[in-house]
């Protein structure tokens, strides 16, 4: 199963957030511990300077420390502050009283002028030591090197660092939690229209709605509008099929009734084939017409515009073959931008039926014309130089459709089919005397989609 959109966004957000907060936390932690260590060093250096100032060397080379030490903490073992002075030959010269209970060797023998920091671990914890090597001049010729070491217990330092870390990570964690919650809420709000579409579709499935009812944000409107158009066209199709099926069944009943009548009234045997044959022919035509109607797709959403030129050439090439004996001259005058918005089969059906009639009735010449009118839409006309048609008859042909075309097998079913397609596309059909060739001109007007 694929991860849901919410899960994806939350997952990606969490990873980014964790990385950002993690790096921030580590940087702050590092900066703080560096700073704390530096201030500890400064403190120890100050203590060391105080110790050096307090120490006095007499002419015999004996080291004297005052009774009152620079810091009171040197006196108590539990204070955690220690000091030690050693000669650079390794001899210990002085220890603070606090060192009495400390069994640890502090650094010594540091070369004069060198500053030495060191961390020492022992049973009771950790010491931070600072040792400084210096030289005392005993006389012009004799010098003696000493190492002054001050050490402080790190318990305080460590505790301070731990407290800082606790509060740092506590805050960062809290912020992360709040941000994730906010992100989750934002996602829920942003993706709400998706859930609405799903819900709407569910309603359509249940038959409660005919189309997507909600108001959707701009980004989704392309999707929802097209979905609605698709639904509408599906519905239209279904309706048409249902009607066609009904019409087919009903219109077949009449010829069937006639046949039954002929059989029941005991028509002479030699007349039966003619009587039944006529009805069979009629039934064939009815089926043809109704099947065409059912096959008409109508305007489909998401369909690319079709070039009328290409379709007209296809039909004309075909008809030139079929009517080869007639040597018809067909002119195709179709504008390049004359496009048909619909199904190719419907366009071929319109052109095929109109041109087939024209080829049938013409003397020699036929003309196809198509142009795009900005206001009125696609205008498609087929004209021939045949005997032409009177306005009354034209009206009758259009009115009658396929119901009763036995008197005029030429202009019957084909025109009825074209008229039906025109209706499905919201267009109109005109029959008139052709202005250019003098025969019949049939014009189909299809409005813009």
């Amino acid at each position, binding site marked *: 199963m694929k991860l849901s959109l919410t899960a994806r966004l939350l997952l990606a957000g969490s990873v980014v957030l964790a990385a950002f907060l993690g790096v921030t936390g580590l940087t702050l932690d590092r900066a703080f511990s560096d700073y704390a260590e530096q201030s500890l060093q400064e403190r120890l250096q100050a203590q060391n300077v105080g110790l050096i100032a307090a120490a006095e060397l007499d002419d015999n080379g004996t080291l004297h420390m005052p009774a009152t030490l620079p810091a009171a903490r040197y006196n108590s073992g539990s204070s955690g502050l220690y000091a030690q002075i050693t000669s650079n030959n390794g001899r210990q010269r002085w220890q603070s009283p606090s060192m009495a209970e400390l069994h640890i060797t502090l650094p010594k023998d540091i070369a004069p002028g060198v500053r030495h920091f060191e961390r020492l671990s022992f049973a009771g914890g950790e010491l931070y030591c600072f040792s400084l090597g210096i030289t005392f001049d005993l006389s012009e010729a004799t010098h003696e090197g000493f190492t002054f070491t001050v050490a402080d217990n790190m318990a305080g330092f460590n505790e301070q660092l731990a407290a800082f870390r606790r509060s740092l990570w506590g805050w960062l964690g809290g912020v992360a939690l709040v941000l994730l919650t906010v992100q989750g809420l934002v996602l829920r709000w942003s993706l709400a229209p998706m859930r609405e579409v799903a819900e709407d579709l569910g309603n359509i499935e249940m038959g409660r709605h005919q189309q997507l009812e909600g108001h959707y944000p701009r980004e989704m409107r392309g999707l929802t509008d097209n979905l609605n158009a698709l639904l509408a066209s599906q519905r239209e199709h279904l309706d048409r099929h249902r009607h066609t099926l009904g019409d087919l069944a009903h219109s077949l009943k009449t010829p069937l009734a006639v046949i039954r009548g002929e059989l029941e009234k005991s028509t002479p045997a030699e007349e039966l084939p003619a009587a039944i044959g006529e009805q069979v022919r009629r039934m*064939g035509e009815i089926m043809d017409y109704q099947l065409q109607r059912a096959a008409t797709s109508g305007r489909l959403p998401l369909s690319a515009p079709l070039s009328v030129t290409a379709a007209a050439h296809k039909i004309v090439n*075909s008809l030139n*073959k*079929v009517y080869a004996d007639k040597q018809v001259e067909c002119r195709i005058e179709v504008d390049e931008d004359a496009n048909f918005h619909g199904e190719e089969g419907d366009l071929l059906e319109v052109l*095929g*039926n109109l041109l087939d009639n024209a080829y049938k009735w013409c003397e020699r010449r036929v003309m196809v014309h198509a142009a795009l009118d900005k206001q009125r839409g696609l205008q498609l006309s087929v004209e021939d130089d045949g005997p032409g048609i009177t306005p009354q008859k034209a009206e009758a042909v259009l009115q009658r459709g396929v119901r009763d075309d036995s008197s005029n097998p030429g202009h019957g079913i084909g025109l009825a089919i074209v008229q039906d397609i025109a209706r499905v596309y919201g267009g109109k059909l005109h029959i008139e005397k052709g202005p250019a060739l003098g025969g019949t001109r049939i014009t189909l007007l299809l409005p813009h989609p």
Partner: protein
Amino acid sequence: MRVLIIEDELPLLEQLRTRLKQEGYAVDSACDGEEGRYLATELPCDAAIIDLGLPKLSGIEVIRKARAAGKTFPILILTARSRWQEKVEGLEAGADDYLVKPFQMEELLARLRALVRRAAGWAQSHITCGPVTLDTATQAVTVNGQAVELTAYEYKVLEYLMLHAGRVVSKSDLTEHLYEQDYDRDSNVIEVFVGRLRRKLDPDNRYNPIETLRGRGYRLTLERTSP
């Protein structure tokens, strides 16, 4: 005339075979696309009637393959679907005419006659060479306006010679186009028919309408006078 019918609906195929034979055609038939394609590319047909909805290989494919193999005989397609899209597809593939089922047999025969005549280069249904006129629609023959009674086989031979007027037609051409596959080619029945035709068309020995070119065949010597 030799016609190939490719149709998978056996009752319809049988009707077509019977009727076309009655009309004097030599008929070969296939009931699926594969066999049809084989016959269409191998037999010397004068025309083919092909149903578009065939098993194994569609009618459209059969037409395309026959045309690709250089076959130029006219093809009439039969289709149950009356949409133009399908008709156009068939005609673009190389067919010459179409009929939508159900059709009337007379209509089919008229279309077939017209296709064969047109393929031989005649524009009208009356074809005239010198004094002889042949109405392909009614199969009536006149010489100088006088009706001549011909048997079905005599008519077939004359029609073939007239459609190909001026050209040499070999004896094997005639047997191939007038008889079905299993016909005995060695028999001299063609010579008999040509002899009878000569007597009927030219009882007074004036035109010598059909000349014999020894070892090559026959030629209608009369000049084409109709378009």
